[in-house]
């Protein structure tokens, strides 16, 4: 997974003196008996590209709609630049939103759609055409200015929606599943355009998505949500490499989970007993653990090596048989059945075009990984 350019060196969340642009303070939102957002605290900083990631129904859309002003928190406060925006209606907020359905006005042309918000702002009438042209240039739609929304393609509509939401130069731009309606190729290309536009305008973006790859590609920080709560808020690489819970490890990417008990600890190094008659697994933990604690050992398939012989210097080595092979072109995933019945996935990159397939079904193999490759989780 890659980091965006502004991920390096841009880390206002680590600076204790930095004032957040948005602060959620104990925000709860209930719809009748159902709690959509549950006592949530989070700070979002100026210039961030902040992704809210979670399965449908986790409360991420409610959180965004509270920022836009379409829902009011049941409890708690939302501060924008230090001011409580609870009582401010949507039309008075310096926040704009790009809707999942794009919500373009079908009776207005592309240029009129972009000008719609400007006409209702305090911008002088004479400056509006210039600003509209600037936005059309930003999203490369100058030649489509006069068309109606139904006369342009899906990808172009998405860009009109973005230009319209950015035209008023909001302090905060909300994007609700902005690329959900596009096909995969176009989506990947548009992700980079979004990052580009975010950097060019310097606007703070909050994006809601259920697509983890999208969140990892565009965001400076990703917030993983479940049942109205934030499980982890961190940079994409830390979310992937240092998940704080089994939920996050399992939600982001592919992972092998092995349950066991902490046998002994030495600093970050943790030994886990996981099955009778099997050697202890050595992994690492971010927090100190007491011996005997029930835990899960989480390791990504690409960090598990597969070989015919036991690697002599491997810290962790387990034997098993190949149960299944998934050939995906760029990589192959081997599903290895251990003697204990566990299935562990190991990935290898297919770096040679016509490689010998080293292993086939039912082959006896060894899986090995270093002592820092896997992480020990208790949550």
């Amino acid at each position, binding site marked *: 997974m890659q980091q965006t350019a502004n991920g390096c060196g841009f880390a206002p969340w680590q600076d204790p003196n930095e004032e957040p642009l948005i602060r959620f303070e104990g925000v709860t939102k209930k719809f009748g008996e159902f709690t959509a957002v549950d006592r949530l605290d989070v700070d979002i900083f100026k210039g961030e590209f902040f992704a809210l990631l979670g399965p449908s129904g986790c409360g991420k859309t409610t959180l965004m709609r509270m920022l836009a002003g*379409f829902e009011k928190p049941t409890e708690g406060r939302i501060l924008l630049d230090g001011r409580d925006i609870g009582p401010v209606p949507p039309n008075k907020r310096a926040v704009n939103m790009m809707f999942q359905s794009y919500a373009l006005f079908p009776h207005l042309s592309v240029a009129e759609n972009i000008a719609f918000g400007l006409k209702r702002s305090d911008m002088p009438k004479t400056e509006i055409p210039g600003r509209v042209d600037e936005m059309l240039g930003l999203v490369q739609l100058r030649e489509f200015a006069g068309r109606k929304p139904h006369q342009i393609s899906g990808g172009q509509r998405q860009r009109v929606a973005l230009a319209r939401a950015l035209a008023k130069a909001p302090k905060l731009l909300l994007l609700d599943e902005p690329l959900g309606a596009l096909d995969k190729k176009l989506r990947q290309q548009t992700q980079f355009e979004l990052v580009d536009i975010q950097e060019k305008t310097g606007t703070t973006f909050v994006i809601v998505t259920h697509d983890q790859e999208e969140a990892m590609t565009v965001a400076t920080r990703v917030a993983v949500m479940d049942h109205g709560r934030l499980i982890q808020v961190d940079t994409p690489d830390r979310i992937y490499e240092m998940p704080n819970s089994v939920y996050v490890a399992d939600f982001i990417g592919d992972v092998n989970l092995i349950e066991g008990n902490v046998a002994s600890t030495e600093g970050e190094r943790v030994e886990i007993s996981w099955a009778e008659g099997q050697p202890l697994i050595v992994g690492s933990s971010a927090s100190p653990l007491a011996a005997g604690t029930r835990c899960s050992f989480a390791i990504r398939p690409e960090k598990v090596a597969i070989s015919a012989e036991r690697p002599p210097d491997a810290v962790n080595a387990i034997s098993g048989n190949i149960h299944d092979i998934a050939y995906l072109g760029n990589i192959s995933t081997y599903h290895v059945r251990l003697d204990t019945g566990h299935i562990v996935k190991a990935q290898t990159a297919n770096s040679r075009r016509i490689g010998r397939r080293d292993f086939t079904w039912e082959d006896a193999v060894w899986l090995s990984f270093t002592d820092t490759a896997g992480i020990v989780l208790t949550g």
Partner: protein
Amino acid sequence: MRRLTWFNVTALTLGFAFLYIPIVILVIYSFNASKLVTVWAGFSTKWYFELMRNEAFLNAAWVTLKVALASSTAATVLGTMAAYVMVRGGRFFGRTLFSGMIYAPLVMPEVITGLSLLLLFIAVGLERGVFTVVLAHTTFSMCFVSIVVSSRLATFDRSIEEAALDLGCTPFDAFRSVTLPIIAPAVISGWLLAFTLSLDDLVIASFTTGPASTTLPIRIFSSIRLGVSPEINALSTILIALVTIGVITASLVSKRAIMRQRAEEQRAAAT
């Protein structure tokens, strides 16, 4: 299966005959030279000229037009407002009761609507005339407008209105500059429906009208009681012609609009 079998042709012929033979006979006899409606005495357009000199019919036509214009416009405003609240107003106490009550006039016998309105006008001491007929027509036709408009509102992407609010519109501005243009076709067809309902209403108008404000249906009905005159045939033929032209124009315009939109969408998808 898509063939014209004898069965299909027969069914089609019978159906259309059932619908249109009465109208065709009426149109033919409007060009009859004889004063006797049932005896053909050669082609003539004299009844159309007679009609033009008939003050009573011309006055009634003028009253009907005024009533239809005023009542359909008022019904459209009220019906659209009611539909907006029912579809967009969220849940409030008694919502189901209210939405049921809006549609009640659809199934209410016209005689009862007419009678209750008459009693109301007498109770409040309103003198019966054009104004009371307008009120009565507005009352019974607004539920039709409301049905047409609310079905359009229900299929309309709510986030378009939210986008308008988000871009700085007050709720009223959002309704005026976004919702209304989008539901305009439904509002217009609601208006047309209310207009035609008002044009041909006889029962409610006869309950609520006064001596100086006879509408065309009432005039036609009362002169029929004195015997069918060829003038009425001529008048009916003119009405049929107007309605036919209106319907054909409306459907051609909407068909062309749909075809243009489809072509544009195909072109957009191709680029």
